[in-house]
C-alpha cells in the first residue's frame, strides 16, 4: 500500500494550484468521447452498471429486542427450502435454499465455468440456467436441475435439450440491456462457438431484440402453449423480463400463463453490452422487486406465480432483504462468477495486458479472461479446474444461506420466507419512497399514499379540535 503525504491527497498541478475536474466533462467522459471518435460507434463492456443505484444496501433490518423474541442460531431450525413453478401442475423446481444461478451462456463462459457452477448447484440443491448458446452436455451432467433458456436468437436451441431440461425460461430481456439485441464482437466468436451458433467464425454477432416466432404478450400465451405441448406439460415455464414497466409486464406474464417470473434489474450483469445501455436502461432491482410483488398480489396470484429477482444481489443480506420484500428466490450471475475467481488478484500480467487490474476488470467481452471464466482459450480455461472452482461457489452459496438464516432468526423467524417488509427500515428517503418501508427514526413511508393519508388525518384531527390545523398535528 503506497504511502503519501496529506498534502498529496489533493491533486495539484506543477504550479501548485489545485487541479479541478469538471463534472460534465470528467476524465471518464473525455476518454469516452475520444474513444468513440476513433471507433466510429458506441463502446461495449461487460458486467454491469457503474451507477450507484437505490439498492438493498439502503435498507436495514430491525431484529428482535424487547418487543419480539429472537431464535438461537444453529439449534433452532430456520428453513430455507422452497418449491417453485407448480402453477400449471408441472414437476416443480426444488430449491434447498432460495438462490438460483442465472443464465449465462456457454460461449460467454468457458465449459469449465459452466461445469463448476452446475456441480456446486447440485451439491447445494439449487438450479442453474443455460444461456444464449444452448445446453452444454457438461452442464447437464453436472447440474441436477437445469433451466433451459429460450432466447430471441435461438442460438444452439435444440428441442431434445428442451425435453431434457427441468424447466424452460422464455427470455424477453435482461436487466443490463432491456429492449435490445446488441453486438458480440468477433473475438469471442471462435470456431467452436460459431458452429454452435450456426454463424461464420469471427463475425461481430448481432443478436435480435425480439423472438422470431412470437411478438406481443398475447402471442406469448400461444408460445407458452407450444412449449407445454413440446414438453408434455411436465416442466415449469419461466418468463424472464428486464425491469422496465414492471407492473404492466408482470401482469402480462401472469396472464400469458407463466409459472415463474424472473425480474432482472438495472444492476444485472452481461457478457457484453453497450456501456450506455447498461447505465441508462431499466430500473433498479430494489424498485423492480417491490413493483413485481405488488403486481402479482393485485392479480391475486401470490404463492401461485413464483417470483425470482436478480441484478446486483451480492450476498445473503441482499437476498434476505429481497425475500422480506416478497420475492420467492433470488438469482445470482455476477456474484457466482466472482466466487469462481472473477477479479481475483492472480495472473496479474494478464490483467495488465488487458489494460486493467483485478478489482476493476469488466473485460469479459475480449475473451481473454485471466482466470479462465469468460474465455474459450484452452490455456486460460486450464486455469479454472472444475472441482476447485465448484468448491468456491459451493462455499459462497453456503455463506449466503447462513446469512439469510442469521437475519431470519434475529427477526424471530423459523423460515427465511417468513421475513416481511415489517422487519425492515429504510435508511434513505428514496429507499423509503421506493419500497414503502418507513424511514429510520420515523413512522413514515415516503410514498404518495402516506402523504395523502397524513393530510386526511390532519384535516380530520383539525375538524375535531375546532378547525385548527397545527404544524404539530400534521406530523405523525
Amino acid at each position, binding site marked *: 500500500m503506497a504511502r503519501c503525504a496529506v498534502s498529496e491527497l489533493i491533486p495539484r498541478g506543477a504550479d501548485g494550484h489545485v487541479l479541478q475536474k469538471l463534472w460534465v466533462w470528467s476524465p471518464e467522459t473525455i476518454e469516452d468521447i475520444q474513444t468513440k471518435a476513433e471507433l466510429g460507434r458506441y463502446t461495449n463492456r461487460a458486467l454491469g452498471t457503474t451507477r450507484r443505484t437505490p439498492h438493498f444496501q439502503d435498507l436495514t433490518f430491525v431484529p428482535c429486542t424487547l418487543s419480539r423474541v429472537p431464535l438461537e442460531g444453529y439449534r433452532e431450525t430456520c428453513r430455507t427450502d422452497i418449491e417453485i413453478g407448480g402453477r400449471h401442475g408441472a414437476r416443480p423446481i426444488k430449491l434447498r435454499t432460495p438462490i438460483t444461478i442465472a443464465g449465462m451462456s456457454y460461449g460467454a463462459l468457458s465449459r469449465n465455468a459452466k461445469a463448476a457452477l452446475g456441480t456446486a448447484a447440485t451439491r447445494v440443491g439449487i438450479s442453474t440456467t443455460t444461456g444464449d448458446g444452448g445446453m452444454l452436455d457438461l452442464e447437464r451432467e453436472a447440474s441436477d436441475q437445469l433451466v433451459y433458456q429460450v432466447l430471441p436468437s435461438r442460438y444452439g436451441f435444440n428441442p431434445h435439450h428442451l425435453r431434457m431440461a427441468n424447466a424452460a425460461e422464455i427470455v424477453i430481456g435482461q436487466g443490463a440491456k432491456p429492449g435490445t439485441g446488441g453486438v458480440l464482437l468477433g473475438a469471442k466468436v471462435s470456431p467452436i462457438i460459431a458452429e454452435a451458433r450456426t454463424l461464420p467464425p469471427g463475425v461481430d454477432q448481432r443478436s435480435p431484440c425480439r423472438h422470431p416466432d412470437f411478438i406481443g404478450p*398475447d402471442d406469448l400465451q400461444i408460445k407458452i402453449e407450444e412449449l407445454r405441448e413440446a414438453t408434455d406439460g411436465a416442466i415449469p415455464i419461466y418468463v424472464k423480463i428486464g425491469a422496465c*414497466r414492471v407492473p404492466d409486464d408482470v401482469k402480462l406474464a401472469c396472464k400469458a400463463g407463466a409459472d415463474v417470473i424472473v425480474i432482472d434489474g438495472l444492476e444485472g450483469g452481461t457478457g457484453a453490452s453497450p456501456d450506455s445501455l447498461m447505465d441508462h436502461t431499466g430500473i433498479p432491482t430494489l424498485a423492480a422487486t417491490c413493483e413485481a410483488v405488488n403486481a402479482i398480489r393485485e392479480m391475486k396470484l401470490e404463492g401461485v406465480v413464483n417470483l425470482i429477482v436478480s441484478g446486483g444481489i451480492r450476498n445473503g443480506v441482499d437476498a434476505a432483504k429481497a425475500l422480506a420484500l416478497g420475492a420467492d428466490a433470488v438469482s445470482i450471475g455476477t456474484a457466482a462468477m466472482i466466487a469462481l475467481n472473477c477479479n481475483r488478484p492472480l495472473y496479474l500480467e494478464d490483467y495488465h495486458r488487458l489494460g486493467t487490474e483485478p478489482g476493476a476488470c469488466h473485460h469479459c467481452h475480449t475473451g481473454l479472461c485471466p482466470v479462465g471464466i469468460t474465455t474459450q482459450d484452452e490455456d486460460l480455461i486450464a486455469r479454472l479446474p472444475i472441482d476447485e472452482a465448484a468448491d468456491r461457489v459451493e462455499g459462497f452459496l453456503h455463506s449466503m444461506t447462513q446469512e439469510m438464516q442469521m437475519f431470519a432468526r434475529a427477526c424471530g423467524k423459523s423460515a427465511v420466507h417468513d421475513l416481511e417488509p415489517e422487519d425492515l427500515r429504510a435508511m434513505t428517503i428514496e429507499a423509503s419512497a421506493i419500497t414503502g418501508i418507513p424511514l429510520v427514526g420515523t413512522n413514515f413511508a415516503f410514498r404518495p399514499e402516506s402523504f395523502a393519508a397524513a393530510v386526511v388525518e390532519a384535516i380530520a384531527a383539525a375538524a375535531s379540535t375546532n378547525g385548527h390545523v397545527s404544524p404539530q398535528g400534521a406530523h405523525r
Partner: protein
Amino acid sequence: MCGLCGFLYKDADRVGPVGRTLHAMLGPMARRGTDSTGIALYGAPQPDSYVVRARIDANHGTPERVAAALEEAGTVTERSQQGPNMRARITYSGDLGALTDAIEGEPDVEVFSIGRAMEIVKDVGDADAVEAADPYAAFEGSHAIGHTRMATESVVDVAHSHPFWARPFPDISVVHNGHITNYHKLRRRLENQGHRFATGNDSEVIAVYIADKLERGESLEDALRASVADLDGTFAYLISTPDGIGVARDPFALKPLLYAESDEVALIASEEVAIRAVDQDAALVPRELAAGEVRWWLR
C-alpha cells in the same frame, strides 16, 4: 394485447344475425385476453333518431336523472336498462357532444356509443360473460366488429375496453391490437384541434384520428392509408363506420390480422380459428394482411 374480429354483409340490403356471428368469433380468441370483451353492432339505421348506449354504475336516482336529461334534450322513444347498461332511442337534432355531456353530467355514467345504427356493448370478462350481462347474440344487423382484451398498460375496467366510440362522431368506432407509441403526441395534436378523449387508452386515438379525417371529407381509404404513416408502434385495427369496415396493419407487420371474403360476406380476425368458428367452407381462404396494408369493405 387482444383478439379482433369483424363481419360484414356486402349487399346493402342484407341484414342477418351479426350478434351471434360475433359471439362465435370472439369465443375461440379468448386466449388473447379475457380482461374484457366488446362489440360494436350496426342495426337498421333510423334517419330521424339516435340509439344511445351508456353504462350507469351508480344507483340512488342516477338512472332516473339520466332519463330526465335525455327527455330534456329530445324525444325518447325507447329506453331500457339491463343491470348497469342502458339503451335508449332519442329523436334529437343538436350537437352530439352536448348530448354526451348532458348524459354524463351525473357521476359514474359513461356513454358507450351514439349512432343512427351503431350500438356498443362491452364489459369485463369473456364473450359469454358479456352476453350474460347485456345480451347481444340475438342482434340482427348489417355489420359488426368485436374485441377480446388483455390489458397492457392501462386499467382493466369497462371504460378502457374496446370498441372505442369516436366521440362525438356518430356510428364510428375502433378495435385495436397493439400499442400506439406516439399516442401522447397525436392526442395533443387532436385535442388542439378541438377533439376530446374519454380515456387514457392509446387505442382511442385511432378512432378520433380516423373520424377527424372523415369529417374533413376524406375517404375511408385515404384516412386508413394516412394512419399507417402517422401512427407509430404496433397495430392491427378495425374501424367501423355507418357504411362498412376498414382495416389497417402496421408497416412492420407485428400484429396478426387475417381477412376472408366471398361475394356475400367479409370476415376479419386476428386468428383463423375465429373465422372457422363461423365458416368452415374450404373455398373461403383467409389471407394475412401485408405489412402496411389497408383494406375496406363498404355496403
